[in-house]
């Protein structure tokens, strides 16, 4: 087994960048911060490519199966003899794959931000946060210990919080960051308890050991956890479902998805990195990481499946109605992640049945590229128009050709049109779904169609339709749009690279490298099978073209046709309002306030009552000291009598 220790540097470099920029950035690196961050990240990226090469092509495979390699493991916090939090580096197909994704996307974002964030006051801080995020994400990927996952999970959350709240004096941004953190935190509570359950029965927190123990149906741990049950479900189900709750929170699965759209308050490159390519797929990664265990529990997997499928559908429907382009992208992200989730859900562990697993990972991989491409494209559009709203856009294809081309490629990719990347991965998913569960397959198909519809709605609204509007828009003095035109090369370059990926990555023989059990998996594109989805997508594209390519009333008719349903979708089916109701109308006034009141008035009031009664008594009995010497003598005699009676007659 060769040495992978250098992988440690991949996360550590961004960490170093964070420390340096965080401490001294404001003073010394106000300008050069971007270069520093990019440079260090470039190194990590190269390293991860080296690692990938070494793992996939040189020595990762032992007699035809990719091995799990623990490159490093250090006991960080010992709880009890064999339960401990370990810091480590795991090298296996998915972790290496994620390394590639995270580093390269992050690199693109770094480069893009050089132009996009130029002249920001807290430029250095921005890069510090980016590095922090990259570090945490990489750490999460490389975790060997489920608690290590949880820690980096939290760190990812907080760095996302910091980046969403980057424009800290913008109330909406602050609110969004708060919301994102609290919702995911709530999900993490489930994750934590899940860890506690699994860890307790497994007697360890080490992922490898856990899988080992829970995949053999005879092991005492497995028996104990499956026999122990609470509210009718076995503890295994509980543990896995709770852990999935954590994943759902990060990956914005229904009903924990509400934070994702608001998260778009952050700078667009951040959205591209965190809320499109990397962090939001952490949930998928988590389930994949523990997939062998999940595969032992039917119930948990079913939940994963249906939550994923429903989220995919719901998000797609909502996306059709949104007008803020970033929000549209956000919902499409949610729906794509839904794809990955149910792909995992319908999968089995090992062999041909592991197709779903592989497909999910594949989609994760391709999605990372075209979705970040979409966001960066949207970024440069926003950079030019200074608005997120569709109505302020239109006919930009002439003004920003490169962006236009890249965006189009990305749209085609996500729509699953061959030969773009999305096509292949989505194809596998559909195949897997088709074999496992027809209902899911139907949902997936419909969602695919919707996807291509709203993506092209977006595309046409931005780059075609109402030219006049844009003309007027620009003649009205927004000449700055022309000055920096499409933005610096640092903004264009990432677009081109990612576009290339969006075209190319589909052709990687993914199943050769990644499968549920590490053994290569033979897959083939079945042309007959792919007719249905592709034609559907094309139809959807044509439909949206007829709606939005040129400004006309068709879309309004459609809106009118759907009526209430449209409004509901436009209002995101009132999930936000529901949450607001629960917090503002129930938690705060019905739990918080009563407790705060009780503390002041009942608990503290009781103490005060004691004091006051004492004072009252002392005023009440002050008459005893009447000042009349005869009464004194009388009391004296009374005392004598009392004592005599007590001690001569009663307590003799």
């Amino acid at each position, binding site marked *: 087994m060769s040495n992978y220790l250098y992988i440690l540097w991949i996360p550590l470099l961004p960490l170093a960048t964070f420390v340096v920029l965080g401490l001294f950035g404001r003073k010394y690196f106000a300008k050069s911060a971007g270069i520093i961050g990019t440079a260090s990240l470039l190194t990590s990226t190269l390293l991860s490519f080296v690692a990938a090469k070494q793992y996939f092509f040189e020595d990762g495979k032992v007699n035809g199966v990719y091995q799990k390699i623990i490159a490093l493991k250090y006991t960080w916090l010992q709880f009890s003899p064999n339960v401990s939090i370990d810091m480590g580096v795991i090298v296996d197909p998915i972790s290496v794959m994620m390394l590639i994704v995270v580093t390269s996307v992050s690199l693109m974002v770094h480069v893009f931000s050089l132009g996009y964030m130029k002249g920001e006051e807290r430029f250095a801080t921005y890069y510090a946060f980016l590095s922090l995020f990259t570090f945490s994400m990489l750490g999460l990927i490389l975790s060997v210990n489920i608690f290590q996952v949880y820690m980096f999970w939290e760190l990812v959350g907080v760095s996302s919080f910091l980046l969403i709240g980057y424009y800290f004096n913008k109330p909406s941004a602050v609110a969004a960051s708060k919301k994102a953190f609290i919702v995911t935190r709530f999900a993490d509570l489930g994750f934590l308890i899940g860890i506690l359950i699994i860890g307790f029965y497994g007697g360890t927190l080490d992922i490898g050991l856990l899988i080992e123990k829970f995949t053999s149906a005879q092991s005492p741990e497995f028996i104990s956890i499956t026999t122990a049950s609470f509210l009718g479900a076995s503890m295994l189900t509980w543990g896995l479902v709770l852990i999935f709750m954590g994943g759902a929170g990060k990956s914005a699965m229904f009903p924990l998805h509400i934070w994702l759209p608001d998260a778009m308050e952050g700078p667009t490159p951040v959205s591209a990195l965190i809320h499109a390519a990397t962090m939001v797929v952490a949930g998928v990664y988590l389930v994949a990481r523990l997939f062998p265990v999940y595969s032992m529990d039917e119930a948990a997997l079913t939940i994963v499946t249906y939550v994923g499928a429903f989220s995919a559908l719901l998000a797609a429907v909502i996306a059709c109605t949104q007008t803020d382009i970033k929000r549209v992208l956000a919902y499409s992200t949610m729906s794509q992640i839904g794809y990955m989730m149910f792909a995992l859900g319908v999968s089995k562990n090992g062999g041909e049945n592991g197709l779903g697993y592989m497909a999910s990972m594949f989609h994760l991989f391709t999605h990372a590229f075209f979705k970040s491409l979409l966001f960066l494209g949207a970024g440069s559009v926003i950079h030019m128009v200074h608005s997120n709203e569709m109505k302020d856009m239109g006919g930009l294809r002439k003004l920003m050709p490169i962006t236009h081309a890249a965006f189009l490629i990305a749209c085609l990719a996500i729509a699953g049109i061959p030969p773009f990347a999305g096509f292949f991965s989505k194809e596998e998913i559909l195949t897997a779904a088709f074999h496992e569960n027809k209902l899911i397959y139907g949902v997936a198909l419909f969602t695919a169609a919707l996807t291509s519809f709203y993506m092209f709605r977006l595309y046409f609204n931005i780059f075609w339709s109402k030219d006049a509007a844009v003309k007027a828009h620009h003649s009205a003095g927004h000449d700055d749009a022309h000055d920096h035109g499409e933005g610096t090369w640092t903004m264009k370059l990432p677009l081109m690279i990612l576009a290339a990926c969006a075209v190319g990555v589909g052709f990687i023989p993914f199943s050769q490298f990644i499968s549920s059990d590490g053994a290569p998996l033979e897959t083939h594109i079945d042309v007959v099978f792919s007719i249905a989805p592709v034609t559907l997508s094309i139809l959807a594209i044509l439909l949206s073209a007829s709606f939005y390519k040129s400004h006309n009333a068709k879309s309004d008719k459609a809106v009118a046709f759907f009526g209430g349903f449209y409004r509901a979708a436009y209002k995101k089916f009132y999930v936000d309002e529901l949450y607001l109701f629960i917090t503002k109308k129930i938690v705060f006034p019905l739990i918080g306030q009563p407790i705060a009141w009780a503390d002041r008035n009942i608990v503290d009031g009781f103490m005060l009552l004691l004091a006051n009664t004492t004072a009252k008594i002392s005023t009440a009995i002050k008459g005893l000291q*009447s*000042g*009349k010497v*005869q009464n004194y003598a009388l009391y004296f*005699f009374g005392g004598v009598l009392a004592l005599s009676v007590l001690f001569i007659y009663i307590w003799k």
Partner: protein
Amino acid sequence: MNEIPLTHILFVSTALFFIGMYGLFTRRNIITMLMSIELMLNSVNINFVAFNKYLFPDKLDGLFFSLFIITIAAAEAAVAIAIIINLYRSHQSIDVDDATEMKF
């Protein structure tokens, strides 16, 4: 000769004692109160003498004690009278209820 039994004498002294106490509790004139206290002391004297005479005639403890009580009562009375006179100076009265400035 038949002599008076001890109990009779004790009864007298006790009666005297409580009469004195009653006087102390009820009389408003400080001088009178002082006199009632003297009554109490004298009842104690009777006790001592009686006990001595009836129960322990061979030693004279009781008698001497009563002598001392008489002397000290005199001293006490002297100081008390002085105080009362001074009280009269400041209060223009020797009614005990007029001297209830300090209370509670």
